[in-house]
Structures are given as C-alpha cells and as structure tokens.
C-alpha cells in the first residue's frame, strides 16, 4: 500500500529550463508535505515543505504546489542547474497526534540537468 507515489523514476531537463517533479498521495489524513534531495552516498536533505492550509510555497528557485482535491503536489525548479541533479523524494505526514511526526516517503525521482 504505497500511500505516497512518485510515478516518474527519472526526469531529464536542459540547464536553465524548468524541472517539474510530481507526487501523488492517497491518505487524506496527510496534512504536511515535504521534498528532500539526495546525492549519491549522502543522506537526504530537507528542501522545502508545505502545509495543507496553503497551495503554494516558494523558496528561491524552488516552488511547491499542493492540490488537495487531486491529492497531488509538485516541485518546480526554475531555472534548473546541473548541481540540481539528484534524487528527489516526496514525503507526507499526518498530525503529531496521528502519526507521531513520522514521514511516509515516495519512491524518488532521479533528476538529471544537462549542461
């Protein structure tokens, strides 16, 4: 039962263009969503998050959009840079009371930004 799904295992874009990574979830109790970036041989690092009371959160080149009715979120990277090449994980959490701060992760999407 995969509650958080990233249907694209890989994505390749040209430097300077937009990267769009997608994520779908099934559990309606999720109310907080995060994106992590992972380089080879390193642990994932927190990138950006969004609460379910918002539909957009922006941090520099990174913007996360949340569509609650569709249970879908996306990460936009503009402009994409070669250093953005990494695996991106989508993650979701319910309330502290229901999930104890646990995160459920998607399978990850390998982003490659070509110079």
């Amino acid at each position, binding site marked *: 039962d995969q509650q958080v799904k990233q249907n694209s295992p890989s994505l390749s874009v040209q430097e300077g263009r937009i990267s769009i990574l997608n994520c779908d979830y099934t559990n309606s109790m999720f109310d907080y969503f995060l994106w992590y970036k992972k380089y080879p*041989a390193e642990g994932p690092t*927190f990138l950006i998050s969004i609460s379910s009371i918002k539909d957009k959160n922006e941090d520099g080149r990174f913007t996360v959009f949340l569509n609650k009715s569709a249970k879908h979120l996306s990460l936009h990277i503009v402009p994409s840079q070669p250093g953005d090449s990494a695996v991106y994980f989508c993650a979701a959490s319910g309330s*502290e009371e229901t999930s104890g701060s*646990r*995160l459920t992760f998607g399978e990850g999407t390998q982003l490659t930004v070509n110079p």
Partner: protein
Amino acid sequence: NAGVTQTPKFRILKIGQSMTLQCTQDMNHNYMYWYRQDPGMGLKLIYYSVGAGITDKGEVPNGYNVSRSTTEDFPLRLELAAPSQTSVYFCASSRYGRNKNYGYTFGSGTRLTVV
C-alpha cells in the same frame, strides 16, 4: 556541529551473523528514526522513537530491534542477518513539534550487504 552520525559506513555480513548499526545526534532532538532504502522503493520506516525509553515499530520492523537509552543514541540491531536485509540504512532525527522548517536531519547512511 556533527548533526546525525552513523557508523559504520559500509559492512558485509554473512547470513546468520548479527550486528549493530550505530546512530547518534547532537541536536537534542526528541524524535529519531531508522529507514531503509531499497532500489526504486523509496525509504521505508523500520523503527522510530519519540524520546528516551520509548520506541515503536514502523512499516518493516521484522528482523530488527532498537533501543533508546539516551536522547542522543538510537542503535539498530540486526539479529540473524538475511540477504533480504541488504540495503542502505538511514538514521534521522527531528525536533518535536511542527514549525516552518519541519523536516528530518539524516545521517549519511550505512550500506549493508548480507552474503
């Protein structure tokens, strides 16, 4: 400021052997977690702890044990290693409560091979 430290980084075990993966954090975080990452499968929660003396099972706890005697340390014990436990293991910690930068801090991982 070390963050989350995992040891060892690599290990090869024979079937039936046991070992302990060490994890320590210096951020005074209450919550700690153990995840495993299999290729194409994202991160699966093994065990987690909400504070010293308190542990609970995640999605895939079979074959593992944990303890949390101090806030800083959260070791993961593998008893009777099996090839199915070949994976990359990540320890993570988080501060209790929800805030703008809600996210985990991950260690750099332990790559375990069971032969």
